């Protein structure tokens, strides 16, 4: 299986006034297609920064980030946006659905941005995904009419509707109770297995990360190591929060 994400010695620094805050200090990793990867680490360890770089919403200060074979540093803003649209799906911690659009429209949105499918095809695609996340009966609802778990399912459907190679999920269960969080992880896992989509998700919940077939441990902007593929495998001591 080919590599979908390749990160080589990436450094990311933020400038807060005159103070330089290092978020990642030379991270290297490789993710292969079809993997179900968790990035684990405590708050402030650089999980979100790493996901931002992989997701092409941010650029590295130095080092090389390759997504789907393309060096993101060489892309224009426009090209990075297109890359996101066509290759990457996003699932956010606080769901980030568009409040004024219905469930159906939220899921349809990326397809509209792509503008490739006809209305009928779009509808079939959206309904099929809503079916897969168990929300086909809620297509006309507004996000505000749904529970947290349902919203995140919609977000999952939206992330997958363009059939991306890679889905990034930033703390997808953090705003959910554990049972619902478990559901979402199960759903993601199922889709990973059924469709072969690569998933990378960040979490600091041990139960959640136990579903991953590999866990990258992150602390203070550095990779401590990779563990797994295991279910319920012991977490390396240095990765524990």
């Amino acid at each position: 299986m080919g590599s979908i994400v390749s990160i080589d010695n990436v450094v990311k620094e933020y400038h807060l006034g005159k103070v330089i805050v290092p978020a990642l200090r030379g991270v290297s990793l490789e993710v292969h297609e079809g993997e179900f990867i968790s990035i684990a680490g405590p708050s402030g360890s650089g999980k979100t920064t790493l996901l931002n770089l992989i997701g092409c919403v941010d650029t590295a200060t130095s080092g090389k980030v390759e997504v789907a074979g393309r060096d993101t540093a060489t892309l224009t803003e426009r090209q990075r946006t297109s890359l996101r649209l066509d290759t990457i799906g996003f699932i956010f911690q606080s769901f980030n659905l568009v409040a004024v659009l219905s469930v159906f429209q939220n899921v349809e949105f990326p397809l509209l941005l792509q503008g490739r499918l006809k209305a009928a095809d779009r509808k079939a695609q959206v309904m099929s995904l809503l079916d897969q996340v168990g929300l086909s009966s809620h297509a006309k609802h507004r996000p505000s009419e749904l529970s947290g778990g349902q919203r995140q399912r919609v977000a999952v459907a939206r992330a997958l509707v363009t059939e991306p190679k890679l889905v990034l999920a930033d703390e997808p269960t953090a705003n959910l109770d554990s049972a619902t969080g478990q559901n979402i992880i199960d759903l993601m896992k199922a889709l990973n297995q059924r469709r072969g989509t690569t998933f990378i998700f960040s979490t600091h919940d041990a139960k959640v990360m136990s579903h991953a077939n590999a866990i990258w441990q992150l602390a203070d902007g550095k990779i401590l190591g990779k563990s797994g593929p295991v279910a319920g495998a012991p977490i390396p001591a240095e990765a524990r929060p």
Partner: protein
Amino acid sequence: MIGHWVVLVQIAFRNLFSSFINLVIGVIIAVGTMLVVVGGAMLDSLDTAMSRSITGSLAGHIQVYSAASKDELAIYGGMTDDPSLAAVDDFPKVKRLLLGVPHVKTVVPMGINGALLMSGNTVDLTLAKLRGAVKARDAATASGAPAADLAEQVDSQKAHIRQIVKVLVEDAAKASVLADSHAVDDEAKQALATVSTEPFWEGFDRDPYSALELLENKIAPLVSDADMLYVRYVGTDLDAYQRAFDRMQVVDGQPVPAGRRGFLFPKFQYEEQLKLKTARRLDRIKEGLTESGKTIAGDSELQRFVRENQAQTREIVLQLDGLKTRTALARLNAALHSNETDLPTLLTRLFTTDDQNFMDRYRIFYEQLAPLLELYRVRIGDMLTVKAFTRSGYVQSVNVKVYGTFEFKGLEKSPLSGVTGLMDLMSFRDLYGYLSADKRDELRVLQAASGAKAVARENAEAELFGGGGPVVAEAKEGSIDEKAQLSGLKKAKKSEDLVARIYTPGEIEDGVVLNAAVVLDDPKALPQAIKAISELSAKEHLGLKVESWQQASGLLGEFVLAAKGILYFAVTIIFVVAVVVINNAMMMATLQRTQTLGTMRAIGAQRSFIVSMVLLETLVLGLLFGSAGAAAGAAVMAKLHATGIGAWSDAVYFFFSGPRIYPSLGAGNVVAAFLIILVVSVVSTLYPALIAMRVSPVTAMQAEE
């Protein structure tokens, strides 16, 4: 791609109703749009109506005048008086060349001036009649012809004078109560006393001319009803004028015959200023009752007219001689079922009117009394002596015959178009102080006959007082022989002949013309025609200033322009407020929505998508409420178009070009409204859109706090 826009519009619509501030913005936009639509349409309609009024009455579409003029042309008069214009050089050539310009239908020569009309007072007129009657009687008696009828006429006129004297004595008695004794002119008092005695009238026939002299010199000045009337007139080629301005119609009398000298009074002025005031007031009461739906009981102006008619019967009494007074008493007593012997009292009773009896009294006045009266101070057919200051400052007077009155269709009640009379160009030139060919010939003859010669300034003193120059003529004592004095002047030509003379079109055109109205066959061709005429003038060295009717009508023509300025100022303020409010609201909305915007960017929305989303939101808001405003405006205009707006005062007639204006909505106003909304939407949202565009997709990843 269509789906892309569908979702954008949907987002826009849904965001629209998500906040209260959008409703406020919407109302501002709706009101602004309605103002643009209604105000714009009203002003356009006014513009059209005024253009009809102005182009159809005096100005034509274009006015040309000499570029050497000191003042700007102002067809309806300037701020103080008529502007001073230089004459157009060689009008026939100008006319010939202008007629060759595309779309030019006619060129009418003009000159505008003002003059004073003097009319004698009632006593003067009556005394003149008495003198005429005395002369006729004496002549008849001398030739042995039967003079009984003529003697009766003399008696009737005498009775009339005696009646006037009676009125004057009463006036004097009233005045002495009010005025200090020193203020009373003793000589006048004595004269009044003399002429109110029986012996004076008994002795009248023994020496009628001495008696008449006393009356003319001492009594006539006591009556102050003589009026000076200011008349503004356009001297023009009357035939060409009548053909070019088809809204003009002759009301009373007839048009001035082709090539003749003559004067036409504007009907409005004729009624307002020359009609017997009592009759005019009756007309106005009737108008108020029948046309404006007023009542005497409910309208203070009509009540004032009634009171004035009751009090001011003197005007009528003075007009009636003894015979007519008796007739008037008999007729009015019969009509009013009364038995009154005093005419003023009876007249006061006639004019004591209310809403019930007015129409009846009105009819009685016109059927019974009016035939005994001179209703107008100047009658159609009268010879009018017009006096005017010439350009060089001396007073020139010309006799012209009044052929009739005229008005412009739709502008019957407009004081603006109703106070300018029409005069032939020949009389105008005489009054304006330019020498016509006639006058030049006459002067040459005069000069030859009198032996006058031109004297240079440096030689003037020697010529006049010193030297041995030949004496032109010796002044001798002796009576003045009118015939001999006037013989060299072709006396006949000077007076009656001038009036009867028929001028050829060539004579009419070849002389002083101050300005000329150019009438086009297509009003829309105005800008091209102005350009073409200006170019022609430059090429042919005609020295013309070319102005549109708006410019030529001075302040009046700029009225609509000024009103438009005010409207657009108000609209600008409203929309500036809208821009500020929209900008603010959209900034707030953008800042509240950064996470949504960031999410969209993260998911793959390009910056252009975000910009169009924000712009579209305001545009939808603008178009939605703008359409509502435009629709409301259109509804208002449809209603106004159907019912019309009545002219609420005489002055408004001119602006409405008639008694009612039916304003209509042009597509231009709606297009303008939507263009303004477009600009306002884009301008007000540019900055918020820029901010929205810059929202980083990273924002989406930041958890909501």
